[in-house]
């Protein structure tokens, strides 16, 4: 009986061998694939297993973590003033992943980032719980509040930048949403998420950076800058050679002005009362290529990373002469994010130097050690210092003598420059126009704040009353005031 016994022994050995081979296949060859499988909840479980780090504004966290007592995802994200800060923080949801800062800095916030390796190792030895690091933002709580409350129940967005550094001070978008409402994964969270997805007013859209709008008249400052830089205008008070009713090239139409007194108006006067004919003609004089060059120096035709990605603003590179003339007054294909217009304003307020906008100031380890500090970085110099100061003169004139009176701060030693815009859009301009306002405040030490405001559509305002000066300027004023006050 021993011969079959030996064979059976070999057979049993083969059975064990087959199991060993299968196990190697499973746990060695396929381990990564199985580990990263979308159905594998372990990644999510790990993300919420420990207290997540916080996003900090003015030294105080605007996020938090609560022990939800859940057996799968232990900690749940909470947000203070969620709707106000949502365009900055993004969301971190147990069911719907994360976006914006919550996603970009996920490694730091969860504590899984390689830069936190030392902390993790230390925690392992001291027996401490793993904890995420903090993200310190550049935002200004008071400015954000002014922006968010100024927008109120209107649809729109506000971006405020510190022109000297590029720090983003406020970024508001309405209507907004509360990221807390779907931070978990219960039926309630699902309902909130689905409702937001279905909402026609798109509350989850970050209008400040992810929506591009026709800029309308606020774009005229870019055309003015191009005219000055290219020597088409040297004296801003000199008369320009513009007939009232300037004929658009390659077209039978004439450029109509809403304002009176635009014929041969000086550049300064034309900006004060927002003459379409003057700027369309100037854009035509400068030419498409130079206009494109100027717009791109300000950041058009490129995505910006703050580090949250913004949509690229558009200045049409292929426009014909007529299209270029229309583009020069912010119509035709020109489209811009509020962030982009804030950058234009900031560059002018900063004497021609455009700083790269950013909103993450510092990354900190759980033990508050500094991991990374963002240094201000120069992005480009769209205009010379002299021309920037000429532009400032003109924009300040808009506030004192022109359409931007509502932005005046009436504070001693503070000069305010601005530009209004009422952007018509839709088929035959039939939709309710967008109200724009860009402005900056300037003291003897330079400019601490530049703001861009857009109010998309305002319930309860009659069509005739929609104007940049009326709707958007007061919001810009409040934001600037908040920044100046918080600086003491």
């Amino acid at each position, binding site marked *: 009986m021993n011969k079959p*016994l030996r064979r*059976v022994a070999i057979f049993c050995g083969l059975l064990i061998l087959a199991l060993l081979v299968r196990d190697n296949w499973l*746990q060695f060859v396929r381990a990564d694939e199985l580990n990263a499988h979308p159905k594998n909840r372990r990644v999510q479980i790990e993300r919420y297993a420990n207290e997540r780090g916080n996003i900090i504004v003015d030294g105080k966290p605007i996020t938090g973590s609560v022990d939800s007592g859940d057996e799968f995802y232990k900690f749940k994200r909470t947000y203070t003033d969620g709707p106000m800060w949502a365009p900055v923080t993004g969301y971190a949801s147990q069911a719907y992943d994360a976006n914006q800062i919550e996603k970009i800095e996920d490694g730091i916030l969860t504590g899984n980032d390689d830069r936190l390796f030392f902390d993790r190792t230390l925690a392992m030895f001291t027996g401490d719980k793993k904890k995420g690091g903090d993200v310190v933002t550049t935002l200004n709580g008071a400015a954000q509040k002014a922006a968010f409350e100024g927008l109120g129940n209107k649809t729109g967005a506000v971006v405020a930048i510190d022109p000297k550094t590029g720090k983003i001070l406020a970024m508001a978008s309405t209507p907004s949403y509360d990221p807390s409402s779907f931070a978990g994964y219960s039926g309630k969270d699902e309902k909130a998420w689905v409702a937001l997805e279905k909402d026609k007013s798109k509350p989850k859209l970050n209008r400040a950076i992810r929506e591009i709008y026709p800029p309308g008249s606020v774009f005229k400052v870019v055309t003015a800058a191009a005219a000055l830089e290219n020597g088409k205008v040297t004296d801003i008070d000199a008369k320009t050679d513009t007939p009232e009713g300037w004929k658009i090239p390659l077209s039978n139409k004439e450029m109509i002005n809403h304002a009176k007194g635009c014929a041969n108006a000086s550049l300064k006067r034309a900006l004060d009362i927002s003459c379409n004919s003057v700027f369309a003609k100037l854009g035509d004089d400068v030419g498409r290529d130079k206009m494109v060059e100027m717009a791109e120096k300000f950041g058009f035709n490129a995505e910006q990373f703050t580090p949250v990605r913004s949509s690229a603003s558009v200045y049409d590179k292929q426009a014909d002469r007529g299209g270029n003339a229309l583009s020069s007054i912010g119509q035709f294909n020109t489209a811009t994010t509020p962030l982009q217009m804030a950058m234009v304003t900031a560059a002018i307020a900063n004497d021609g130097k455009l700083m790269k906008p950013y909103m993450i100031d510092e990354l900190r380890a759980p033990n508050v050690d500094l991991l990374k500090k963002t240094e201000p970085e120069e992005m480009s110099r769209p205009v010379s210092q002299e021309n920037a100061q000429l532009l400032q003169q003109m924009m300040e004139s808009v506030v004192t003598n022109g359409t931007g009176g509502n932005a005046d701060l009436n504070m001693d030693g503070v000069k305010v420059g601005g530009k209004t815009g009422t952007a018509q859009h839709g088929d035959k301009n039939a939709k309710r126009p967008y109200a724009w306002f860009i402005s900056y405040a300037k003291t003897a030490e330079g400019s601490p704040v530049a703001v861009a405001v857009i109010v998309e559509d305002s319930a309860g305002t009659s069509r005739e009353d929609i104007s940049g000066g009326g709707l958007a300027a007061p919001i810009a004023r409040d934001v600037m005031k908040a920044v100046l006050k918080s600086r003491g």
Partner: protein
Amino acid sequence: MSVVTNTTTIGAIEAPSRRNTELALLAFAVVIPVFAYLNVGLAMDGKVPAGMLGYGLGLALLAGVAHLVVRKWAPYSDPLLLPLATLLNGMGLVLIWRLDQSPRLIATSMRLYKSFSPDAPSQMMYSAIGIAMFVGVLLLLKDHRVLQRYTYISMVVSLILLLLPLVPGLGADVFGAKIWIRIGGFSIQPGEFAKLVLAVFFSGYLMVKRDALALASRRFMGLYLPRGRDLGPIITIWAVSLLILVFENDLGTSLLFFGMFVIMLYVATERTSWIVMGLLMAVAGAAVVGSTASHVKSRVAAWLDPFGCLETATDQNMLNACDQMSQVLMSFGSGGILGTGLGQGNSDLIQFAANSDFIFATVGEELGLAGVMVFLLLYGLIVERGIRTSLAARDPFGKLLAMGLSGAFALQIFVVAGGVMGLIPLTGMTMPFLAYGGSSVIANWALIGILIRISDTARRPAPAPAPSPDAEMTQVVRP
């Protein structure tokens, strides 16, 4: 012993008993699970678990008692079997205790039954009963050949055991499988014990009939077919047990019995044709069952494409099977080479049966590839020691019994681990010693007891020959 004076025969050689080797190995088999227990406590609560001393002492006490009994009543037995079983049983206790702490499993239990009771304490009790069973086998079964006398009684007993779960009022339907009986507060799986009893019947019958089966046969299509009167009874018993198991939805056990039967038949008759016939019958059986039983269909679908069938599942049953299978695979995958460490994995995502059918997934996730291979080799060693015992046994009955038991053990490991790792479709059996379940632990301790008894008989030195009276009388006469 004054064998030197005996000149007629070769004297008995004092074979080393290897009891001290066994004791040293047992020390490891107790210390390793105790450290594992400590590891789980530190990983999950950050402090030394309160029951550590009790657990360590309990395991050491059980191992010590078993060792002393072996030392006294089976001194020449194989030194590896007891430490291997102790180590597996001890690690099983740690793994079950670890899953007891899982907040997810506690919450699931609260949702479903409004109560939660940890399984580790009862498993500890079952282990104690198992060791008692082991001791009982060694004390009562002084010679395994005694079992030969109970060949036909074994047949009846095994059939009764298999039929018990079908008795109304006694049987309990748990998750679709009717393989439990409930007496008082306990549920017993008679199939686990039937495995042992059936092995006794097969050995006894085949030992008597093996020549008839091997030689008195007709040649048919190149195969030797034995006479009906020799093969009839055994085929009948086997077929009846299979039918019962199919009615009870217990495919794993029927596969196990079938495999055990074929192996023993082959060993007894030394005819390869049995293997061929066995394989043909297995294929035919699998085809019939696979195409008719819906729960088998689900499992085959889950085996072929666990992730894909999550989307294509046609009913809730299939969806559950696929979900379980994909969770198990991800558990193994997440373990990687070294595992997450005891107490730090998420194998409890498999939900219920995490501590019984799928306990091997916890090994995979928390101890990794390295740990799984160690466990497979430990099981492999038990099988190897069992087959060695069979080779060494001097009587055909002992040979067949040892072979049947170790072959069944090997098949069970293959069917369970292969099913859990997705090598073959899942059949719903449990890892011996590792998984939660009283019947399994007790029956497997009895199995180890029987193997130890056979190995003791096999390795026992030949008794010293009785002093020959002739040797005393005959004088060498010198001239």
